[in-house]
């Protein structure tokens, strides 16, 4: 019994138990459990890539990537370019991905260079680099030379809108791709497959020469250096890959949501992703693909189901507060643990 607790971990056990109670309550309250599971599946796929983006950063020894907004902003610009060209469907989505990834490569490289000069303070510097980038881009959104009337304010005729609807462009392209339903539960097959595909890529990457070198650089820089690994280069690679996955992640997120959110929306985006990977059992220096998948599954299912259940039981929406307490508590717990 004790070994089981140790292997699963206390946070996961608590959240798992909490989830079971919520599901039981949902059943008792006669809530549409099948529909809840369907929307949980969508939210898992929707947030999964952003959580996966934490892995290269943690593995390369950069800690939790609080600088995720860097990738998010690249991805958003990619989507805006695709929208400006009035592309739609899968072509529009993949073009947005392409532009986003192309932008995130230099962005991530520069971010990696910066992080190499601020060793030991990567997380704090990342957080505030992200914040200032998001705030700085707010000015860009106001002044950017985009012309498509779907994206700019109707009144005044310039400046991008706060939320841009994309449902007629590439909204839901992955969600609806090969969607099927089993016993009343709708499965967004395209979305989940896309997430799974990226998971496999990250998993396979960890077995390549470079992947092993990166892991060594993160675990024990001095040892890695002694065995001929260029630690600085591996850290830059980790930052870049993390940023690229952030760019892909926001595109996946936006196509599920049906909106591109600008201005201050990306400000806090790193925190739920960080919390999810930690909930999945990762620490600030160790993380596996399994951690990311388990974390996002637990976290998003919890968020999906806690809203209707608490609403029907106590008549108020406690899910936002629960999200704040659980996600930030999880991060705080990881930061105060004696390791790393």
């Amino acid at each position, binding site marked *: 019994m004790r070994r089981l607790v140790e292997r699963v971990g206390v946070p996961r056990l608590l959240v798992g138990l909490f989830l079971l109670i919520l599901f039981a309550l949902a059943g008792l309250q006669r809530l549409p459990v099948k529909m809840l599971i369907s929307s949980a599946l969508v939210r898992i796929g929707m947030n999964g890539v952003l959580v996966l983006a934490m892995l290269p950063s943690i593995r390369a020894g950069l800690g939790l990537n609080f600088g995720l907004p860097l990738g998010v902003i690249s991805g958003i610009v990619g989507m805006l370019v695709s929208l400006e060209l009035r592309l739609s469907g899968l072509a529009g989505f993949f073009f947005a991905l392409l532009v986003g990834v192309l932008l995130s490569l230099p962005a991530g490289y520069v971010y990696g260079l910066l992080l190499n000069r601020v060793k030991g*303070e990567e997380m704090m510097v990342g957080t505030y680099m992200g914040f200032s980038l998001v705030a700085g881009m707010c000015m860009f959104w106001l002044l950017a030379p985009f012309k498509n009337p779907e994206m700019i304010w109707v009144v005044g005729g310039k400046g991008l809108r706060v939320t841009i609807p994309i449902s007629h462009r590439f909204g839901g392209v992955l969600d609806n791709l090969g969607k099927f339903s089993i016993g009343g539960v709708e499965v967004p097959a395209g979305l989940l497959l896309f997430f799974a595909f990226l998971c496999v890529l990250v998993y396979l990457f960890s077995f390549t020469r470079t992947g092993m070198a990166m892991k060594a650089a993160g675990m024990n820089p001095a040892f890695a250096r002694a065995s001929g690994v260029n630690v600085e280069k591996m850290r830059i690679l980790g930052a870049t890959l993390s940023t690229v996955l952030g760019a892909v992640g926001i595109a996946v997120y936006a196509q599920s949501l049906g909106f591109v959110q600008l201005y201050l929306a990306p400000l806090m985006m790193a925190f739920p992703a960080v919390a999810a990977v930690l909930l999945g059992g990762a620490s600030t220096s160790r993380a596996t693909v399994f951690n990311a998948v388990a974390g996002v599954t637990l976290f998003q299912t919890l968020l999906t189901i806690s809203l209707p259940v608490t609403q029907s039981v106590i008549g108020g929406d406690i899910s936002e507060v629960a999200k704040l*307490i659980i996600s930030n508590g999880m991060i705080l717990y990881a*930061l*105060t643990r004696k390791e790393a």
Partner: protein
Amino acid sequence: MKVWRKIRESLTSSPIPLVFGILCLFGVVVSGKSWSFLLQEVVTRLARNWILVLSLLVPVSAGLGLNFSMVLGAMAAQTGIIVMTHLKVPGILGFLGAFIVSFPIAVVLGFVAGNIMNKAKGREMIAGMMLGFFMNGVYQLVFLFMVGTVIPMKNPDLMLPQGFGLRNTVELKYMKYALDNLLNVSLSGLVIPLATFALIGLVCLGLNRLYKTKLGQDFRAVGQDMHVASVAGIDVNKTRLLAVVIATVLASLGQLVFLQNIGTLNTYNSHEQVATFAIASLLLGGATVTRATVGQALAGTFLFHLLFIVSPYAGQSLMGSPQVGEYFRVFVAYGIIAAALVVHAWEAHRRALSAAKRGLPEGETDRAG
């Protein structure tokens, strides 16, 4: 010539206040606002914000860096204000009452924060920030769900119609200007809240006195080198804990002064930006993560709020959109913190590198730097 050299030295040693001073001056000219308008705005904002910024000094000197957990003090203050508004205590009595209620809460929260930072040595700032976010969740849980259910309270003025939870905005009709109006002086149209400035002066004096005591010296010793301090017989953890408790209590006092001037409490948002703006203010005065003085805190607040006031007007006249200016000041707030953190980490990294080259252990250079 000697004068020139002195000026040059002081400018090169603190380029940040200079750069932002010029930026402010530019903004003032471009905004096209009258001096009397700007002066009144600045005086009001200095009275409102100075104590919050001053509360950051003790943790910096004790080596804990920028105290992002000051949000906890703000929450304690808001709890005090909510209690006094519920009891309908008017004026300065309400202000004092709010302080008396918030004081023990701030001490307890400061104790919690200090313990967490002792557990997260080397990453106090990020831990403090996450603690702020976490306690924000707890704060919402208490005031949105527990008030009226677990905690018995009935007050339709303060509470949501559903019977539990506080309203999003609470009008502080009993406490507005409680301190400001205690002693107001009008100087040819310029209104100066003397009582508030007297309190600020008291805090400054208190801080200066604190640094001369044994405890103040301990803060500095721990801030410079924890290892050396502990060898010298200082209880490092306890000293750090005390620094955070003092900071949290001061932050709660600061938030009380802030809110009595604003006059409305945004129950769930008033405290969120407190740390960002206060820390940005301190850094604009030329402070760093490891060194901050009362003078820097006072000057930085002046610069930050002058910039805050003129930005929208400058944005309007330069770009034809006040919003650009509004985002610009948010950008400055975050950007200055990012820049200060980068400079701090970069220097520590360089020191470590040169120490490695000379074959010294890291602690040796820490003391030298």
